[in-house]
């Protein structure tokens, strides 16, 4: 295990050219202003002077300014929304990252941090602002098997960390479906979840420290507060790039369970599957994961290369994973099996070997990809309701889909009440897009009315902004703005996201439909 020394400032020897160019400030006016830009597609403060300055920090190969090159970065995994960044910059080291943020601070330029661009809420869209990608910062700095922690840079891919510690009998527990692509920095910014968060908790519960560069360029260490201090790490996790960028983060590693049992329960109604979910939770069994897939999802998966052997005629299946010590695990699996049968399951399949389990999981984890067979675009929605409301909500969601003539595919974390009603559609078809948007609005309203929330793990980003007023009181939203102002008083980091700020004019809002924007 190697030790890390965390220097609060960029190494001057390493960084002297930047420091001197900081000093003359010649670039600062390059873009023509100090604006909180991004209102018109070409961001205020983003111009050739700034690009040259950034190129001096990261090297010209890592600054993109041409429209054709920026095309790649005009969207994340939220379909039907494109925003063109003013430029894109990709620092390769910690010092470069800090220098880039300081450069942008000096220029007063807004910026949007981006990991792998797998976010589903439009959080990494940069409308004229500087897009700051952290994917080159992919060093695993230290692994401490004894303390069960790892220190990583923000661009490390989620699954890469688990692979790096597999030989130690450890893994990184939060496992979003995009884990083979998404970065830990992005996970931190979004407070990402995943199927196994039912038992193990979300990103928040697995990060113990982060070194962060604030939008001002200050570098601060954030902790959970258990040594005597505010829980500023807790405040930072899930701040969606609005509070700064993690330079490094210390995460907990979880010991691999002694044994894992995966069950696939097959139901002839989605309501029965929801009832079984409630019965399992109420019985006091805490599965590692408890996932529900409906028939539309099952068929999309079974038609694809990710076919997992799910029963095509099932109205819904539950994928239930139990893990832990060998003693007692089979008793829990037997109990789960009985509860599923008691709720009307037609059959319960049990996979105990790794190959059979990974096949069952492949269908679940690649379900979103499989839906690519159904239509060209897919809205992957995210909402949470109290667990006892699941059956009722699923019935209502089906009715809403029918009313708007859209197909809803449900594949979600049933154990947490975390719904993912997904709608495959064609974003180039304006009429269809409008119907999808209307259906989603109704689904969200219904989840809020049921005492739930508008996002359990994907973030608000741009997509959920219109629902924030329905979920939070004006005073609460105001307090959120106060918190943002602590970290970023100039509101240059990911402007216009998460909290609707009417007083701030830096963002022109969402388009109002899910149609692809044509410019």
């Amino acid at each position, binding site marked *: 295990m190697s030790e890390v020394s965390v220097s609060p400032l960029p190494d001057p020897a390493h960084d002297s050219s930047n420091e001197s160019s900081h000093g003359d400030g010649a670039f600062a006016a390059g873009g023509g202003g100090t604006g909180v830009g991004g209102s018109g597609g070409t961001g205020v403060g983003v111009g050739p002077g700034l690009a040259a300055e950034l190129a001096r920090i990261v090297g010209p190969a890592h600054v993109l300014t041409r429209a054709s090159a920026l095309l790649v970065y005009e969207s994340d995994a939220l379909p039907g929304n494109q925003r063109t960044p003013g430029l894109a910059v990709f620092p390769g080291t910690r010092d470069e990252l800090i220098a880039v943020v300081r450069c942008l601070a000096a220029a007063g330029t807004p910026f949007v941090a981006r990991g792998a661009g797998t976010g589903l809420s439009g959080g990494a869209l940069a409308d004229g602002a500087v897009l700051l990608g952290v994917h080159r910062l992919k060093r695993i700095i230290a692994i401490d098997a004894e303390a069960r922690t790892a220190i990583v840079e923000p661009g490390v891919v989620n699954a890469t960390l688990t692979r790096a510690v597999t030989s130690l009998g450890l893994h990184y527990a939060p496992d979003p479906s995009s884990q083979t692509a998404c970065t830990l920095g992005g996970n931190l910014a979004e407070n990402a979840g995943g199927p196994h968060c039912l038992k193990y908790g979300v990103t928040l519960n697995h990060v113990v420290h982060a070194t962060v560069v604030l939008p001002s360029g200050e570098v601060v260490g954030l902790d959970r507060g258990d*040594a005597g*201090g505010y829980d500023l790490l807790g405040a930072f996790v899930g701040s969606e790039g609005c509070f700064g960028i993690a330079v490094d983060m210390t995460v907990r590693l979880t010991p691999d369970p002694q044994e894992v049992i995966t069950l696939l329960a097959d139901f002839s109604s989605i309501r029965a599957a929801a009832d079984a979910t409630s019965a399992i939770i109420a019985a006091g069994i805490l599965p590692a994961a408890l996932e529900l897939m409906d028939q539309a999802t099952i068929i999309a998966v079974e038609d694809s290369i990710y076919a997992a052997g799910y029963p095509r005629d099932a109205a819904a299946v539950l994928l239930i994973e139990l893990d832990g010590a060998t*003693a007692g695990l089979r008793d829990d699996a037997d109990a789960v099996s009985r509860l599923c049968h008691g709720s009307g399951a037609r059959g319960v399949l049990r996979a105990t070997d790794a190959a059979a389990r990974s096949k069952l999981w492949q269908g679940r984890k690649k379900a979103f990809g499989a839906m690519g067979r159904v239509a060209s675009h897919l809205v992957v929605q995210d909402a949470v309701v109290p667990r006892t409301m699941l059956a009722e909500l699923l019935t209502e969601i089906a009715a809403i889909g029918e009313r708007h003539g859209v197909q809803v595919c449900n594949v979600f974390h049933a154990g947490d009440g975390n719904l993912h009603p997904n709608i495959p559609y064609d974003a180039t078809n304006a009429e269809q897009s409008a119907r999808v948007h209307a259906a989603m609005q109704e689904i969200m309203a219904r989840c809020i009315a049921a005492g739930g929330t508008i996002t359990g793990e994907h973030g608000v980003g741009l997509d959920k902004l219109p629902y924030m007023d329905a979920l939070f009181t004006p005073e609460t939203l105001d307090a959120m703005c106060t918190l943002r102002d602590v970290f970023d008083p100039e509101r240059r980091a990911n402007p216009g996201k998460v909290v609707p700020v009417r007083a701030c004019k830096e963002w022109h809002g969402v388009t109002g439909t899910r149609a692809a924007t044509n410019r």
Partner: protein
Amino acid sequence: MNATSIARPTLTPRDAAELSAIVRESTAGLRIRGGGTWLDAGHPVRASHELRLDGFAGIRAYVPADLTISVGAATTLAELDRVTAAHGQWCPLFSWGDDRASIGAVIATASAGPAAPMLGRPRDLVIGLECVDGLGRVVRAGGRVVKNVAGFDLTRLMTGAWGTLGVITEVHLRLRSRPSVDETWVVTPTPSGGAEFAAFLRGPYAPLAAHPINAHEAPTPWLVRLGGNAAFVAAAREALRALGECALETHSAWERVRAHGAPAELASRWQWNALSRRVRERFDPRNQLNPGLLGEPV
């Protein structure tokens, strides 16, 4: 024991709106008092008035099958335990101190406890809260569902802030089912078995909680709580017995452990930095909420 026996005029709002009015309409420093169990923690509070939260007691919402509960901040841990136990559940905080403490204070002090490594800290178990901040805003942070990333996380901000950013009036908590078998043991690991005992605490049969009873004694006896289904606990018990002399204890032994640990010291050695000062200035610009408690300069 009670360091703050200084008589202060008392304010007793009945709801968040009244509390908001108190904060908005006066510049008086407020000494926040829930169960009154942590009043000797931290630095002396320079407040002219005592704010009593007695009006915020009681269960507000509880659907056992959701495994969540909403309670007024002045609800005691004893009451929370009584209500959830009736449904085979608990909020497994086992915080430092005792069960007379209010849940609001447990969240405000982020008082963890011997079970925190396994069952979660206050920050892991609180899913939302209502508070009145130093601007008098009634803030409803988070929600009542177990997964929620909507908006900036004011819940985590208020948790462990010792009331200096907002007065917590209601909390929403995640609950767990009580294990079907739950046993407390005293184990004295054999002098040569320290490594094995450490491995046990981190292994597949890890206990819900483990705490040394008397660190000055050698070998040190440990209090260990085993929980799970019958087969799990049977295996864990066997593993424990292999490590040293074991004796079954009552769960009340944990009360003595909890009484000796405390978050009080955290308030005394609070670490201020530029960012935390900024938080304090913005959420309580008039320095009204527990002023001085964390030793910050006026």
